């Protein structure tokens, strides 16, 4: 399945993209997605934290991804 992942803040700077399309096997989890990003962009491993949001909600690493999910990488937030 093909997923388009939205990128913000420092993840956008590191990847030089605001969206990145990844092709994952059916049944892949949030952790699988993160692993793919770390392989492609090792610089992401230097971040304090990196989590995934699925459909506007923070997702657990074990959550299985669906082709219709809206997915985003969330580096450490710093609003306020």
């Amino acid at each position, binding site marked *: 399945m093909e997923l388009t992942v939205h990128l913000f803040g420092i993840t956008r700077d590191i990847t030089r993209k605001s969206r990145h399309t990844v092709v994952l096997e059916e049944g892949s989890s949030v952790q699988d997605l993160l692993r793919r990003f770390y392989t492609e962009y090792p610089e992401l491993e230097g971040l304090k934290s990196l989590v995934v949001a699925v459909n506007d909600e923070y997702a657990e690493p074990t959550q299985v991804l669906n082709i219709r999910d809206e997915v*985003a990488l969330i580096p450490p937030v710093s*609003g*306020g």
Partner: protein
Amino acid sequence: MIAVTDQPIDIQACLDAVQSERAGAVDVFIGTVRNHNNARSVVRLEYESFDSMAIRKMTELAEEAARRWPVEKIAIVHRKGVLSIGDVAVVIAVATPHRAESFEACRWVIDTLKQVVPIWKKEIYDDGEEWLEAHP
């Protein structure tokens, strides 16, 4: 009133939004852009927001605050885009029957917003730039 805006925040509109005859107190937090951080001179800030999720998380904060304190009305408004020194970045206004709970609720909302709402701040210095909190 919950919003993320690329326009200057209208503080009076936030106060109007929490006006309530049942409230004896309105506590307001105004976050502004300061000219230094960790001894570096800040020239400007750039805020980026994941709008749909930010609004969802801010709405959850308002709901949770109302569960914890007797909140009559609440406004949470965050600015995004390029901000200069002194600009207003965030406004939180909480109306409650008495002052103690409006202070507590307002503080909890800004503290928790900084931890969970997907908004990112980049500081631009004389000699570089940095996304805050990004690295250990």
